[in-house]
């Protein structure tokens, strides 16, 4: 295997982006996946940042943050958070958003806020482990037409129910999102270190869609904290092509993510 698990994740995530999409990425792996897609197969996709940076391509390596100089050097427009996250994301104009998850549940609800000792969400005290909070992920989850969630596939992270819903997926499943009139369609895929889950169309429960060639249906089931159902046509995800890997690696020119 001439590529890492992270690279496979990034390529698989990049494949979710279509040409012409208006996209919003976070930093790190999700931004790598996004700019990979633009360079590889989606030349007319346009990336914005949460704080309102438009028209830019990272210079000198992947950015340290979504407001840093590497992503600001060749921008065509700088505005603010209400513009990007409000007018474009929360209003429903963004085609795809890519977010990370420290914990995700079977309805695609994402926790990036914290872990609590008690099982229940009715935790009344401070968290045992503080994570990062929402940033703009909550707006992405409410507003983007499609949302792709990236997560390390470990049993403790793939829970029946997340400790804290930072970003709504399908909430209690089915039509639960309708109560809130979210303009966004909800998560379309969870791309993990082992494979890809997608929601069952009616119940919105996430099911095994495909597995990476270095993984298996069995491993994915083992590492999932709910009883993971399998789509009838579940299959292996095509391995990264040489050209995909070349482009991917040219974007992470400082090797920021290869170190991991």
């Amino acid at each position, binding site marked *: 295997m001439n590529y890492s698990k992270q690279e496979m994740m990034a390529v698989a995530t990049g494949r979710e982006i279509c040409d012409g999409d208006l996209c919003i990425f976070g930093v790190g792996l999700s931004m790598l996946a996004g700019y990979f897609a633009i360079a590889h197969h989606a030349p007319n996709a346009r990336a914005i940042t949460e704080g309102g940076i438009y028209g830019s391509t990272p210079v000198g390596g992947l950015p340290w943050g979504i407001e840093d100089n590497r992503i600001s050097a060749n921008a065509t427009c700088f505005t*603010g*958070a209400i513009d990007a996250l409000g007018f474009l994301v929360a209003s429903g104009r963004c085609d795809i958003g890519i977010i990370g998850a420290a914990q995700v549940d079977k309805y695609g609800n994402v926790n990036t806020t914290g872990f609590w000792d008690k099982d229940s969400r009715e935790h009344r005290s401070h968290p045992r482990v503080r*994570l*990062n909070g929402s940033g*703009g992920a909550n707006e992405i989850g*409410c507003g983007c037409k499609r949302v792709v969630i990236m997560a390390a596939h470990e049993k403790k992270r793939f829970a029946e129910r997340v400790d804290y819903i930072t970003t709504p997926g399908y909430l209690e499943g089915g039509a639960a999102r309708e109560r809130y009139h979210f303009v966004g369609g909800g998560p379309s895929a969870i791309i993990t270190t082992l494979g890809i889950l997608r929601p069952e169309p009616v119940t919105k429960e996430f099911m095994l869609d495909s597995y990476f060639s270095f993984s298996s249906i069995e491993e994915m089931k083992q590492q999932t904290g709910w009883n993971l159902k399998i789509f009838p046509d579940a299959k292996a995800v095509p391995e990264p092509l040489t050209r995909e890997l070349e482009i991917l690696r040219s974007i992470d020119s400082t090797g920021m993510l290869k170190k991991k």
Partner: protein
Amino acid sequence: MQNKLISLSKAVEMFTRDGMMYASGAGLPVGSESIVFGREMVRQKRKNIHYIVHSCSQQVNLFCAAGVCDKVEAAFSGLEVYGFANGVRRAVETGRVIWEDWSNLSMSLRFLGGALGWPFVPTTANIGSDIQHKSAFQPDTFPCTTKIPEITDPFTGKIYGALPVVKPELAVIHVTMSDVSGNAILLGTEWGRFELARAAQKVVLQTDYIVDTACIRQYPNLVRIPEVIVDAVIPWQLGAWPQCSVGVYDSDEDHMNTMNRLLGSDEGCAKYIEDYIHSWRTHDDFIKVVGKANAQKLMNNVTSHLLAPYRSWIKSDGEITELMEQSLFEKKGSKT
């Protein structure tokens, strides 16, 4: 227009107090942020600060580690690619700081609503999530119905959320350049700085450069913070260090990591305060702490061309010293 230049130490003395609702901005983890103002607040031992901020930054990290704040309202608590903010984590996980979670849009909207004098702000996001249902400030009610209460759209009868507005007592905002009266130009994303500057009851700018008002009159559309809403202007080059200021300097990778590592323990935090706050009083000494060669390296970056149109209007250190003497804060004979 009045000359509102003020020294860093006097600004902290005059505009901050223990227990206040304090905001800083843009307040992103890597970008433009009023960090040197926060260092001076640590030096002056402010405490019980209720900190309102768009997102974590090294200032937030420092305040949490050093016990300056006991409440934070923010959208994000990490340092992006630099990792978790160790000072924040320790303080939140031990309950020393109560952290109320919002999101990046909702923080800006809360500033917007505060600035407009609105009672609340409608929201189509945050609802349905634990950002709505859980309040760190009201831990005993779950689901919480008073943090982001539901509101009915009078046109359709549909249910949405109502965000509470926020009007901080003071916002300290980092800008790229300002004239002596506070007409400020911000290079790079504004995040919520435009709205925050209007929501706050007092506004103090921390600026990398002082420029002549002729620069402001050449580029009035770039002036996103007009002097009418500004109370004082602190000239302080590299004031966002170790974070970056677009067009001026990069974030300092080494110091970002060193700072975050030290803030991960009480001993480290004490050492950090000793080495990086008590070690300087003047701007010259501050630059020595940053390192002159290091500062040069940070200032030679991929965004330097963005500053080019304004360079001819930038005031020298000597000119700033002279201008400082003509400030209304000097004229009024307020204590130094």
